[in-house]
């Protein structure tokens, strides 16, 4: 199996998972209460669950639409765009955690304590954060293409 076929299968599987997460996000938002499964949390808020879920769903669609003829630049760019969408949602989730972790709260000191700081980063995590490390594989393929002048 060639490198491109591996990429095609990889992003196909990632696409299906992203699509499933996106649909789950939307269903949970409409349903009304958050769902926790292990360290995964699907939030039911309109913004992160609804709007964010919609973007994750489209990331899945982008991945899947780029699977066929993966080595062709326009098809490959769809997989890259899927990853960019995941980076936006996950990046925003991480940035929200960072901004929450720094201040010490209304009654507390100016800066958070070390425990409070670390606690903010403890699970549960939304779906986009789970997809983030897997979406970074797109960078490997971008570099590979650059090496071969693609």
């Amino acid at each position, binding site marked *: 199996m060639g490198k491109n076929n591996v990429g095609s299968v990889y992003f196909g599987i990632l696409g299906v998972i992203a699509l499933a997460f996106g649909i789950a996000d939307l269903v949970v938002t409409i349903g009304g209460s958050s769902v926790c499964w292990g360290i995964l949390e699907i939030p039911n808020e*309109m*913004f992160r669950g609804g*709007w*964010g879920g*919609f*973007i994750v769903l*489209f990331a899945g*669609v*982008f991945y899947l639409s780029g699977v066929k003829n993966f080595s062709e*630049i*326009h098809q*490959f*760019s*769809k997989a*890259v*765009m899927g990853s*960019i*969408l995941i980076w*936006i*949602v996950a*990046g*925003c989730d991480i*940035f*929200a955690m*960072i*901004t*929450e972790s*720094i*201040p010490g709260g*209304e009654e507390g000191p*100016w800066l958070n304590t070390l425990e409070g700081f670390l606690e903010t980063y403890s699970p549960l995590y939304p779906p986009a954060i789970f997809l983030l490390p897997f979406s970074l594989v797109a960078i490997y393929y*971008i570099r590979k*293409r650059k090496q071969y002048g*693609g």
Partner: protein
Amino acid sequence: MKLTVDKRWNLIERISGKTVTFGKYRHTLKDAVGELTVKPLTGIPVAIAVLYGFWSVFCSFAGTLCTDGFLVKLFDVHWLTWIQASFPGKGSWLYYILVGDPLADNCFEAFGVLTSGLFVPFGVVLPAVFIFYLMLTLLEDIGYMPRLAVLIDTVLHKIGLHGYAIVPTVLSLGCNVPAVTATRILETRKERFIMMTLLAIFIPCGAQLGIMQEVIPDTMGLILLYLLIGYFIFGFVLNKIIPGRCPEILIDVPSYQMPTRRNVKRKVWMRTSGFLKTAVPFVLLGCLVVNVLYLAGVIRWLGDVLSPVFISWFGVPKETVGSLIAAFLRKDLAVAQLSAIEMTKYQMITSVVLVSIYFPCVATFVMMLKEGWRELLGSLGVLVAVVFLYGGLLHLIWTLMGVG
């Protein structure tokens, strides 16, 4: 020396043969990604994601980190308590104007020049405007804005504008003042009039967004939705009734590129300092004028006179008159003032929508006047009609829903 046409072409061919390298252009990844962001089918989800990122970073940075994290504590716990205790002449008119309500426990409710007057621009609005301009600059310098213009061109043509109208529209979300100037990129008087009117009425500035995020986060989405619907409905109507043409545009879409730190720094500094110069004096003046009017009994009198309109037509308490007066000076200040008035969630939505669509703030007013008094008068005429129609319509919706 005179050459025949054939000789001239031969010469051109020889020169180009020596100087021009011919080859087949290969699409790069940048080109392919760029195409995806322009085509509607793929570009719209990307635009939705970009807006999501924009809004999420805006709320996290301005709301969670700066205002709620540090500045509320700085102003409410330290500054307000200190100034309330140490300012001489408690109960005097000077104390009321400069410090405000001596029993207030937060800077929003105190409403003095040195309390709310400082907290609103520096504690709430400055972080919001800074992060807004930083992200806008990044999007511009990366090369996304021209793509957004192409993407939204078809939609904006329905309201008599073209894709480039997205520039004043987005700028207006930061501050209406530079946005009014930016309407000059539109070619015809009709387009400029429609754009100026819509942004003065329906687009809340960054300062107002920051305050809304702080005082009414739960209803903010609904308010923005009403304003967005109004933007398109009234744009469509204006396009139908105003004579003139709306030409097509030809945009040169640059390739995506890495923004340079120097450019970003300069642009953000220029825009943020411009905001501070325009906003801070007006916020301080706004607090001063409203407090003087309160002390003189003018606001109570106006509230009594206008109460039939406010209570029966708009369905909001008559105390909102004071906020509407403040709104002429600064809309963010007016929203802050509304938060201190007791009312239901739906009355609050109507009041904030009214503050948004009511008269443009004085700085925008001056800029619009510079663009031409006829345009200004026309915009104001539309504005009065919109305020009564839209405000009354909201009241009607709430009444039909049984919550009015």
